[in-house]
């Protein structure tokens, strides 16, 4: 395979698109996966929890 400009550009255009679509799907699936909901809801409370303002150990 000749490693010329057109090849590199072609690879960028095709692989770049696949890469983006795949990453978006992974990200969306993970975020909205039902079993992950509980963990996220708890995480959201982190800044507002009324705990002692000191390290845990």
């Amino acid at each position, binding site marked *: 395979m000749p490693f010329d400009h057109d090849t590199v550009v072609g690879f*960028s255009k095709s692989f770049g698109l696949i*890469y983006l679509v795949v990453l978006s799907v992974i990200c969306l699936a993970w975020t909205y996966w039902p079993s992950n909901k509980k963990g996220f809801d708890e995480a959201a409370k982190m800044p507002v929890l009324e705990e002692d303002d000191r390290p845990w150990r």
Partner: protein
Amino acid sequence: MFKFHYRLERSAIGLVAFIILVASIGGFIEIAPLFTIDETVEKAEDMRVFTPLEVAGRNIYIREGCYACHSQMIRTLRDEVDRYGPYSLAVESQYDHPQLWGSKRTGPDLARLGNKYSDSWHTAHLYNPRDLVPQSKMPAYRWLLRDQLRTDDLGNQLAALRAVGVPYTDEQIANAARDAYGQANPDSAEAPGVAERYGEATNIRAFDGNQGPLTDMDALVAYLQMLGTLTDAAFTTETAEAE
């Protein structure tokens, strides 16, 4: 599959690796092909390198922050071509380390400034822009006429430029300081060597109006008078398109 996410979320290293992966590929895909672009960029046989005096002038242009108000990139738009001249080609800045395309035009574009005005106009304009252009917003650069130009490190500068890819010859590097002096002193013994090493099209003149010791003004005006004249490629491309 979701075991992976579970771990990613809980492991700081995983998060770091994922951020790097996600973020760096985008830039790589856009930038990497530009390094094979040499194959498709216009070839310009007549493209010459900067003379040592022009390199020194370019350094002053950078030092004073001229790039903050002046671009050196004429876009492919009708009004820009009508106002400033043929649009800029990639080849014209191929020896610009770094490029000075600029991002703002508080003052006009300078890509084709070379030989548009006289040396004395430039010297007077840099000395006090408002003497020639009353509405000008440009600072008065009077110190350029006062300050002596430093030439002792010009050889090192050309050598460093060669290290990043500008094709300077050993002879050009060895004679850098001498050529800088010669280019602004047409009557001196150093002058003929400049044309020999950089081509007959090189401007060899007393840029600040005085022969003798070099000032920062000599260097900056030499640089400004060279802008857009390193190659005729932009002009020939335009005629080819017109035909």
